[in-house]
């Protein structure tokens, strides 16, 4: 038997392994969650993403009732919630965070009630949706996550420059030919898609963390938007790999372990950034260009 066929067989065996499927799924989600999370931070929409994630349970139930798969339901409901927020913010006099708070918690409550009303309601499914169950990712799920991640990255790459421009200044971007509204809608669909596929990996409660924690860590190290997006992908990927192996080693749930690793990486980046800032400040003092206020001690 040729070496090539043996290699092929090994790959099949590896793909059959639930742990490797989990790893691939995590990497696919991390790759698209990184840059998506950067834009969330720049637009100050962390709570907005949270609201979409809170509606995920309702999406799961609706997806099952309508005979679709749960991810499609989550995607649809999360996008509808996002669109509702955008419309309400334009027509209603309520402040934005009030609208988000009301929608986040009412969709979560309605989702829980709807779930209890369905016939095949089982407790363990609920925890899987809330905290993720990446080790249960099947082959079909993996294909869906992989294709979804790839498609998300392609869409993001296509709208990246005008999206960043409109994030900085909508008027400026529009005056120079960007289409802020269309791009923003596409971007929200992307966040909804990340919520839908990321939910399998870390669960509805933590899926936003997968987007914003690596991005926040990258913020301290980057000098341009593209650098930040790239570093966020690296940190999200590293969190995914370390978190998965860590969960195996410590026998802890995979999703929360991944987010915990990301949180520690964030702290590390923060400390590194603080250290380099202090270093450059003290060098500035030595050069006689003291800009920092002096301590009164």
């Amino acid at each position, binding site marked *: 038997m040729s070496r090539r066929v043996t290699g092929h067989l090994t790959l099949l065996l590896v793909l059959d392994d639930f742990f490797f499927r989990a790893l691939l799924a995590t990497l696919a989600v991390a790759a698209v969650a990184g840059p998506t999370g950067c834009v969330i931070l720049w637009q100050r929409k962390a709570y907005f993403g949270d609201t979409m994630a809170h509606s995920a349970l309702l999406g799961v139930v609706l997806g099952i009732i309508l005979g679709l798969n749960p991810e499609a339901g989550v995607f649809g409901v999360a996008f509808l919630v996002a669109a509702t927020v955008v419309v309400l913010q334009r027509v209603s006099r309520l402040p934005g965070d009030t609208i988000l708070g009301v929608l986040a918690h009412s969709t979560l409550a309605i989702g829980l009630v709807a779930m209890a009303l369905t016939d095949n309601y089982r407790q363990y499914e609920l925890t899987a949706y809330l905290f993720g169950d990446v080790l249960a990712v099947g082959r079909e799920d993996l294909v869906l996550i992989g294709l979804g991640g790839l498609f998300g990255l392609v869409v993001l790459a296509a709208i990246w*420059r005008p999206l960043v421009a409109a994030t900085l200044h909508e008027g400026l971007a529009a005056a120079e030919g960007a289409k802020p509204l269309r791009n923003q809608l596409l971007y929200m669909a992307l966040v909804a898609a990340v919520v839908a596929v990321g939910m399998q990996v870390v669960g509805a409660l933590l899926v936003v963390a997968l987007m914003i924690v690596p991005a926040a860590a990258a913020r301290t190290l980057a000098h341009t938007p593209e650098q930040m997006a790239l570093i966020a992908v690296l940190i999200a990927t590293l969190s995914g790999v370390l978190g998965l192996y860590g969960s195996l080693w410590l026998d802890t749930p995979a999703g929360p372990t991944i987010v915990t690793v990301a949180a520690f990486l964030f702290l590390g980046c923060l400390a590194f950034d603080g250290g380099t800032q202090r270093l450059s400040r003290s060098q500035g003092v030595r050069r006689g260009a003291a800009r920092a206020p002096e301590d009164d001690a």
Partner: protein
Amino acid sequence: MPLHDPGEPLVRASSVGVHRGGRWIIHDVNLEICSGEVVTVVGPNGAGKSTLLKTLLGLYCPDAGNVVRAPGLQIGYVPPTDPVQFDLPLTVRRLMTLTSSCSADTIANALQEAGADHLSGSQVNELSHGEFQRVMLARALSRNPDLLVMDEPLRGIDFSSEAEMYQLISEVVEHRGCAALMTSHDLHYVMSRTDQVVCLNGTIRCMGAPEDTVDHPEFHQLFGTRAEAYRHVRHQCQGESLDT
């Protein structure tokens, strides 16, 4: 070089009105900006200066009348912003390619023209207001505009740097031969460097060459003692020759 012939209309507003929040912010505005012309809009706070600019740019749809822009018109826009609003990792170099890519040479030339070439590696949110306005001007210039639209180009700039900034804008506009539309509070500058002054307060109260506008009763109603003071200084400078 600008595509459009001198004197060719670039933007024309006919009977334009913008209705927001239950009132007309501007109404019955008729205005034409021609190639190579420097137009300054003056008026008190809330007069609708920014709204007028945004409507001419096509950012607001007029609720009455219409705005026509010359086909292929390239606009360089300097919006009223502060550096701290640009709160993401962003170097000046990257800011220059915000909406379209351009060559390193174009970027370097535009920055040099605006006196900001030493800032290309700086983070945008660490710039001072003066540096930021220079960079934003360079960004607009890198697009090789036919029309430069500047909303409050002196925003946040201290008194001592104002003259420098005005000088820069004048030089750039003269050198490039592009048209410019801006809002300003500084009557002295407006009078010395502008082809056409537009006094706006909801609608256009008076408009024309600076020498004509300064004696217009509507101008005095809008600017009161400042207009008087200005007229006094100007006439003294010119040996009372224009006194009427």
